[in-house]
Each structure stands twice: as C-alpha cells, then as structure tokens.
C-alpha cells in the first residue's frame, strides 16, 4: 500500500492497467465478496417475495391477546413462534429465536478472533477459535432442527377450520398457522439460510482441519481463514435480516 501511494502521479492513472491490485485485496477474497453479493441478491429476492405475498393477504386487525390462527389472514409471528424446548406449554414469544440469534452472533465473534489469530500466525489460537465457531454453528443448526420439528408437528390444539376439521402443524400444502404461503416461506427462507449455515459448518471444519495439520504454516499465511470467515459472517448477516423481517415485523 505504501509503495503504491508513494508512486502518485503518472502511475496512479494506470492503476487499472495491471501490475498493481487496485482494490488492494487478493483475488480469492474479491471473488468471495462478489459471490456473497450474488448470494445477497438471492436472499433479498426471497425476503422481498415474502413481503409481496404477505401484502396480498389480509392483515390481522385485532389485539395480540385475542389472536387466533386463521386461513383468512397472515399470522403475527410472535403467536406462531412462542415455544422453546423443555418448556412445553409455556408461552415464550420469540425467546427461542432470540437465543438462536445470540448463538450466531457469538460464533461470528469467535470467527473474527480466529482470523485475528491467523494474521499473527498463532496456530493454537486459530484451532481454539475455530472449534468455538464450529460449536456455535452446530448449536444453531440443532436449534433450527428443533424449531422445524415444532413447526411441522404443530401445537396441542391445532387450528379448527370453518368446516369443522382441525389442522395440526404445517406442510407445503396446508398449515395451521395461516395461509399456505406462510409455511412455504418459512420452509424456504429459514431452510435456505439453514443450508448456508450447514455448508458454513463444513467449510469451518475444513479450515479447522487444515490448521491442525499445519497446512497454513506450510503455505505461509492464514488467508483461507479470512475467506471462509467472510462467508460465515455473511450467514450471520442474513440471519439478522431474517430475524427482523420474518420474526419481528
């Protein structure tokens, strides 16, 4: 960097003509960024589509206390996601999702700490923080597995339709919480995000393994930790948006 800033004038005009790296990042990191940009478009499309379809349905007008599931209007999320493991029947709106959010933020922090350790060639610290990151990712996936199970199985009472039949849980065709599209979006958005977490955990494990066998020491740098770190933070970033637009609004 100092070399390129020193050579201002003639050289700086030709910054895009080769020989220097105008963006001052490695090829691999730049490509990871552009991949993440494309992935951001995919997730934006999913979340915006959720908003669009939600707008085509009636909103629930009454108070939160009087809320009941119906096929006629879009459900309010705090009434759908109000359960937590080991606390059957206890009304805990959005608490479990909040815990999941904290888990993911924490594993993002341990990832930056792994990156920081890699920058100073500290093999032991990279291993330690990658293990914590892995643990966070696996914990999040486990929470999501429980959340999906609860969503699919449904509540004790289910939801009784006007024709007298009672619906329990959810499938892609029909669900007890609201219009079919509600469960469809739940499965697609949290599922697509969960798949990203899953692949992130796989990549993190690979990084952990490579750190342990000393691959990065042989290469001479830990840049791969930074690249996979970018992916892992992106997964956290997407969850921040899913949390707001699927669970809070």
């Amino acid at each position, binding site marked *: 960097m100092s070399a390129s800033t020193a050579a201002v004038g003639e050289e700086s005009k030709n910054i895009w003509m080769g020989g220097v790296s105008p963006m*001052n990042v490695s090829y691999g990191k730049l490509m990871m*960024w552009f991949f993440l940009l494309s992935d951001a478009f995919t997730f934006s499309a999913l979340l*915006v589509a959720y908003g669009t379809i939600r707008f085509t349905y009636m909103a629930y007008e009454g108070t939160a206390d009087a809320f009941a599931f119906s096929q006629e209007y879009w459900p309010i999320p*705090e009434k759908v996601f109000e359960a937590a493991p080991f606390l059957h029947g206890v009304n805990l709106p959005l608490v479990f999702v909040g815990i999941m959010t904290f888990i993911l933020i924490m594993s993002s922090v341990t990832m930056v700490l792994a990156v920081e350790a890699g920058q100073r060639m500290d093999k032991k610290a990279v291993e330690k923080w990658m293990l914590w990151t892995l643990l966070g990712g696996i914990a999040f996936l486990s929470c999501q597995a429980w959340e999906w199970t609860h969503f699919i199985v449904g509540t004790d009472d289910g939801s009784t339709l006007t024709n007298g039949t009672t619906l329990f849980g959810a499938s892609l065709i029909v669900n007890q919480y609201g219009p079919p599209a509600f469960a469809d979006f739940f499965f697609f958005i949290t599922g697509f995000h969960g798949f990203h977490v899953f692949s992130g955990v796989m990549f993190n494990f690979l990084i952990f393994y490579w750190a342990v066998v000393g691959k990065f020491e042989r290469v001479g740098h830990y840049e791969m930790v930074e690249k996979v770190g970018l992916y892992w933070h992106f997964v956290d970033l997407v969850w921040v948006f899913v949390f707001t637009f699927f669970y809070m609004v």
Partner: protein
Amino acid sequence: MDSNIEEQSSTIKVLPPNKEKIRRLWTIAGILGVITCVEFAIAFLWPDGALKIALFVGLTIVKAFYIVSEFMHLGHEVKVMIWSILLPLIFVIWLILALLIQGDSIFLLKY
C-alpha cells in the same frame, strides 16, 4: 527452493495478541447484542404501526453495518472496493419498491 520453504516453516514467528483490536471486536459484539435486546423490547412494548417497522428496519441496518464494516472488514478496505460491493445493492431497493407495490395491487384486486 523446497528446502527454503522448510526453513521458513520451522522459524514461524507467532506475534502476541492485538489486545486493542480484540477489545474492539468484543465491544462490537456487545453492541450487536444490545441492539437485538432493544429490538426484542420494541416488539412487545411499542404500539404497532409504521414507526415500529421503521425502527426495526433502522436497527437492522445498524447491525448490518457493524457486521459488514467491522467483522467482514469492508469498512477498512479501499474506497473502490467498498463501492463495488455497496452500489449494486441499489437493485435491491428497486426490487423492494417494485414488488411491494405489486403486492399491494394484487391485494386490491383480490378484495
């Protein structure tokens, strides 16, 4: 050549932890945690309405800023790099406007 690399790996210099940087990372983690708690409080205490949604969106963007700028280090990159990533997201703003208007129109046709 090979022996050169071997020599390098046997003399790897481990630097001490950058205390200041690490402290800053934990501070940012704290900020993200606090914002999430605030969102949580707003969800239950604030009356429903446009302002509530605006608050959620605003706080989400603040969280996104910290994650992208600090955790992903984008805030410390070269300007060209920052804009190459941020500018294309204009299309997302277009998508939001276009599709929410679309959703509204479909609603009016249905009901």
